[in-house]
């Protein structure tokens, strides 16, 4: 048996040995142990080094509030720092290391910082790094010089940079009653609510439900409290309306009773199960919440209170009763309240020698004297600990007579030999979630604690959370809270009978013993009582400022054990009562949350993929895919050895010479249906649609309300009241929202329905001189000649047995047709078209060739309709109807939108025969050393196989008037300067003879 492990007792499984390492040394523990309890059982006293002074630190607590024993857990290459050893469940293969030390935990070179005492006091950084310091190293420069060394010397653990392979998930949960905390109050609340038929969730951050029942040594209904808790949990486990969440920290309380929780699903396992996440983030929407989160014991502030071996009293009780571990062999206690006496008795029972109990109170109750006698401890009433001794472990302490009315120390100090000192400075209810929920905590003078505020949301408190520290009260309050939360009536009931040691819940109002030496208030951030007083002397009054100046209550433990002692010391310095000083508002998270859990399923997979019906065909036929928003589209169908430019030039050239086919399924498609559909489109588009004949399509332009261009596309009239609107791929969602907004808000009287049918149709655009012949070879049920299918005409027919709609329209400038089929038949039709095109030299082409041909034709896309251009800027003013109003018509003629020097669409030809770049500026006079005077910029560029030149579209000031003139491209970022000619944007076939046939 290990040196500190008791032979019996505790909730650990002594038959199951677990092997792990700490700082490279092998250790063993038992199932049920935490890293803290397992190391403590092996006699380890040193767990970490403090933040600033690198003082040796041991365990202060046994739970989530632990400020000292922070470790880094390694899983393969992944390291997770700053985890309290008290919250790490050991498993075979666990690898943990200490942090903030060099070269080792036992011999830390930065321990020399302890000599810097006063220099490293509160405000060290502000005072040292602002203003002149040493010679040329002033202010910020001095900081920059020192920063590297300071960051190495001060801090917590180091984050890793290896990719985290773990899995994280998010769960959405709904319940009638969420119970937070599973001590006796929480268990009773859950049971009472469940008995009412409510849907109940019970969450506890510990792996074992029961809270204090697991270590209190009390009996409930004649059985050990832990057994009672097991029985209640077993009952809850059997209920369909109860969800139990162990290892789950409820860390955030938001509006509308939405709470956030983190479940540590597999941290305690050597390997997670297949598909099992490491952490699960629960977003819980609860009709009502029972807060049964208990209370944190407070340390006392006295010199040497941070020495390894000084621990909170209840933590020692918990180590003894829950883990079968004694924190020392000769134990002394120092308290201002009765609860420590229970710990003394528990430790005596577990086998330790309790050598002394120092109590600041001069008078002790007979019950406490009886408990001290039971523990065989010598009582020192009206005494205080004024010093501790030892290095990396406690060897003794000094007591002195103490007058709690004025804080005076009287007489000589007396030494006591002990290897463990337990302290209890009273209890602070864990009100964090209630504080997050909105209201301000209230100071209770009797309890010397901030109690939960009045609820501003649907929550009810129970047990120690409310300041009711006895188990009997917790059980009664828990049941009442559970009933009320579930909407039940409180009825008389026989409650479980608790047998517990007696105790007054109210502590003496003593927080600090002022004696020589460093007395720590915030253990994690090395804030001393003197730092708090220094802040006061330097003029800090507000508790919020105190926190930020001293860093009291910051870091991973967020001051769970230090807030109230710190406030008390500040209040004394200010000469004000504690309630006047107030407390800081708690913010989420209650305890650290893994970033992975917040990302959840998006971790490593930020966005979904949107695929066209022919996606797999494209991949199988050599397409290089291109991400366009969420869509994936073929960029090129490259041949072996081809560059991207060679591929798109070949594809565009072949299309103009014979025929090409491109997947246009991504175009937004919206069904606009109803008796008022035509009238609606007249309002939405700048041009007229009510005059469009059934079976015809028309190119349309939309403006925003401010008169700027919004989107363009063709709309097909399929029936008298049935239109198929197409939009650009990028703007499909925006146009849909735009239409819905106007129908829902502006013109609700219009009988029009709009539905996204983008995914209903597969689209293939086939263009080129041979396109009509290819269609004729494979389309049945309709002719495709010029008479039957004129420009902008629509016919219905079949291809390879599949119904299709064909519209003759062109983006490439060639004789072209868009063939729409049901998406599920998309590949079938596509393959039939490709097969039919083989004798005609049909090529498949991607976005690059598509873009090239549209630049050659001077058609606009999102690069030109960029939210700043008007219809006139893009030479689309011919589409602005004068016969009707439309969205944007009232604003489009504003002075600024019709100015002559606006950026207008032009074409550019590179005169040095070198490529042009998108985004490059156009200047009248080139000055490479001092590029300025931009008259516009390039929006799209390519090598034009039709012209044999590098060309571009651009927006240029007064562009139309500049056609035929020369200017320069100026692109200093890419070091590209060169002459260009400004021309019409219609480079190729400006009269449209190819398209119209």
């Amino acid at each position: 048996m290990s040196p500190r492990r008791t032979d019996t007792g505790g909730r650990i499984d002594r038959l199951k040995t677990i092997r792990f390492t700490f700082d490279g040394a092998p250790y063993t523990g038992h199932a049920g142990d935490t890293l803290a309890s397992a190391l403590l059982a092996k006699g380890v006293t040193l767990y970490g080094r403090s933040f600033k002074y690198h003082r040796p630190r041991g365990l202060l607590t046994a739970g989530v509030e632990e400020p000292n024993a922070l470790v880094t857990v390694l899983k393969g290459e992944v390291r997770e720092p700053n985890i309290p050893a008290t919250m790490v469940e050991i498993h075979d293969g666990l690898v943990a290391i200490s942090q903030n030390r060099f070269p080792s935990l036992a011999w830390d070179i930065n321990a020399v910082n302890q000599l810097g005492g006063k220099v490293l006091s509160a405000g060290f950084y502000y005072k040292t790094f602002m203003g002149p310091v040493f010679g040329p190293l002033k202010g910020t420069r001095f900081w920059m010089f020192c920063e590297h060394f300071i960051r190495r010397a001060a801090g917590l653990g180091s984050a890793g940079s290896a990719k985290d392979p773990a899995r994280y998930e998010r769960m959405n949960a709904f319940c009638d009653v969420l119970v937070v905390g599973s001590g006796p109050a929480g268990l009773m609340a859950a049971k009472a609510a469940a008995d009412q038929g409510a849907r109940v969730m019970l969450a506890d951050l510990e792996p074992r439900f029961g809270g204090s029942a697991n270590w209190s040594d009390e009996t409930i209904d004649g059985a050990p409290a832990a057994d009672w808790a097991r029985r209640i949990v077993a009952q809850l486990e059997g209920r369909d309306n109860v969800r139990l969440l162990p290892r789950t920290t409820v860390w955030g309380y938001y509006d509308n009773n939405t709470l956030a929780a983190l479940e540590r699903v597999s941290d305690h396992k050597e390997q997670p199960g297949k598909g099992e996440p490491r952490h699960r983030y629960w977003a819980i929407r609860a009709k009502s919440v029972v807060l049964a989160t208990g209370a944190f014991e407070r340390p006392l502030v006295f010199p040497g209170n941070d020495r390894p071996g000084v621990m909170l009293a209840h933590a020692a009780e918990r180590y003894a009763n829950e883990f079968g571990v004694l924190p020392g062999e000769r134990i002394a206690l120092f308290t201002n309240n009765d609860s420590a006496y229970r710990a003394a008795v528990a430790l005596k029972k577990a086998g330790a020698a309790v050598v002394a109990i120092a109590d600041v109170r001069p008078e002790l109750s007979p019950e406490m004297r009886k408990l001290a006698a039971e523990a065989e401890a010598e009582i020192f009433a009206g005494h205080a600990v004024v010093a501790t001794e030892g290095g990396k472990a406690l060897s003794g302490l000094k007591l002195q007579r103490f007058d709690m009315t004025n804080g005076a120390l009287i007489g000589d100090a007396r030494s006591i030999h002990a290897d463990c000192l337990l302290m209890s400075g009273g209890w602070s209810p864990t009100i964090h979630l209630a504080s997050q929920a909105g209201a301000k905590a209230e100071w209770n003078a009797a309890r010397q604690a901030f109690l939960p505020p009045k609820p501003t949301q649907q929550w009810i408190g129970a047990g120690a959370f409310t300041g009711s520290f006895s188990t009997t009260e917790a059980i009664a309050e828990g049941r009442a809270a559970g009933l009320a939360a579930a909407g039940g009536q409180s009825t008389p009931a026989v409650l479980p009978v608790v047998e517990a040691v007696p105790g007054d819940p109210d502590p003496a109002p003593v927080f600090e013993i002022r004696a020589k030496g460093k007395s720590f208030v915030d253990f994690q951030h090395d804030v001393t009582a003197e730092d708090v007083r220094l802040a006061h002397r330097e003029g800090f009054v507000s508790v919020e400022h105190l926190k930020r100046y001293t860093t009291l209550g910051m870091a991973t433990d967020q001051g769970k054990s230090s807030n109230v002692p710190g406030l008390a010391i500040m209040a004394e310095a200010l000469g004000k009562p504690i309630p006047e000083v107030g407390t800081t508002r708690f913010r989420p998270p209650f305890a650290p949350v893994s970033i992975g859990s917040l990302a959840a399923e998006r971790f490593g997979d930020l966005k979904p993929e949107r695929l066209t019906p022919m996606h797999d065909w494209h991949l199988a036929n050599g397409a290089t895919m291109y991400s366009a928003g969420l869509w994936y589209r073929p960029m090129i169908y490259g041949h072996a050895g081809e560059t991207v430019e060679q591929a798109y030039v070949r594809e565009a050239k072949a299309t103009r010479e014979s025929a090409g086919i491109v997947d246009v399924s991504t175009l937004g498609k919206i069904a606009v249906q109803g008796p008022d559909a035509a009238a609606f489109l007249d309002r939405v588009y700048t041009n007229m649609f009510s005059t469009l004949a059934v079976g015809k399509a028309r190119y349309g332009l939309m403006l925003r309300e401010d008169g700027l261009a919004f989107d363009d596309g063709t709309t097909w009239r399929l029936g008298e009241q049935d239109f198929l609107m197409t939009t650009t791929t990028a703007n499909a969602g925006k146009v849909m929202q735009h239409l819905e907004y106007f129908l829902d808000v502006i013109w609700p009287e219009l009988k029009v329905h709009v539905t996204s049918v983008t995914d209903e149709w597969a689209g293939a655009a086939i263009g080129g001189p041979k396109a009509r012949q290819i269609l004729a070879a494979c389309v049945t049920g309709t002719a495709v000649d010029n008479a039957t299918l004129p420009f902008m005409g629509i016919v219905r027919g079949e291809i390879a047995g599949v119904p299709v709609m064909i519209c003759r329209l062109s983006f490439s400038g060639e004789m072209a047709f868009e063939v729409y089929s049901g998406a599920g038949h998309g590949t079938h039709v596509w393959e039939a078209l490709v097969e039919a095109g083989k004798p005609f030299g049909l090529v498949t082409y991607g976005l690059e060739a598509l873009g090239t041909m549209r630049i050659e034709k001077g058609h606009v896309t999102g690069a030109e309709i960029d939210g700043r251009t008007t219809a006139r800027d893009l030479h689309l003013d011919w589409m602005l109807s004068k016969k009707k109003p439309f969205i944007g018509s009232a604003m489009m003629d504003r002075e600024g939108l019709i100015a002559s020097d606006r950026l207008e669409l032009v074409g550019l030809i590179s005169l040095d025969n070198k490529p042009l770049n998108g985004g490059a500026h156009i200047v009248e006079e080139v000055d490479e050393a001092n590029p300025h005077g931009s008259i516009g910029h390039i929006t799209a560029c390519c090598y034009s196989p039709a012209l044999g030149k590098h060309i571009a579209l651009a927006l240029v000031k007064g562009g139309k008037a500049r056609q035929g003139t020369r200017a320069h491209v100026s692109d200093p970022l890419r070091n590209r300067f060169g002459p260009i000619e400004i021309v019409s944007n219609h480079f190729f076939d400006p009269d449209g003879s190819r398209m119209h046939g």
Partner: protein
Amino acid sequence: MVERQSPLEPEFHVGSHGNFEHGVEILLTETRPGSIVQVAAWPGEEKKLISAIRTVAGLALPDGAGGGVSDGVKSVFGFAPGKFTVADEAEGLAAAFARVVTPAIGTVTDLSHGRTAIRIAGPKAEWVLAKFFAIDFALPAFPIGAGRSTTHHDIFVQIQRTGADQFDIYVFRSFARSFWKALCHASEEVGYEVQ
């Protein structure tokens, strides 16, 4: 008739997958209805549309928002005020509705190709769906037959509960494979079978 191609094909792996410690707790399949149709009424014409649904599909809708019903072959549910999704194993439902739903009542939109219907069933169906959607899947809150419109991961979906532990999810076809992969991934933990 040419068979419709499923967007799930390359990722549709029939068989059992994931963690079988507790057996297979999820069944995933694509129901592939022949028809998926949206019918929508003008304000005030809802009852006539509901009557038309009964005439065409033989399904009597219950009162209330999001109400729905399924007979195993055909199913219908409301997904927005006055708007319903109707599915049928057979093709041709849109044409049948077009004959009954006059322009005075509302509109008919054929989405048979545009939506992919994925069925998730099994004792852990609610558990897996809770990973995706912030809606309450418990039976009292989401009764059999009822439908919901919601989103996950930028993907809009409609969900109908077609059994105590069975849900049919209608997702845009272009997103279907991505959603399917996510659904399989989320089901690994409890073991799933693709049928």
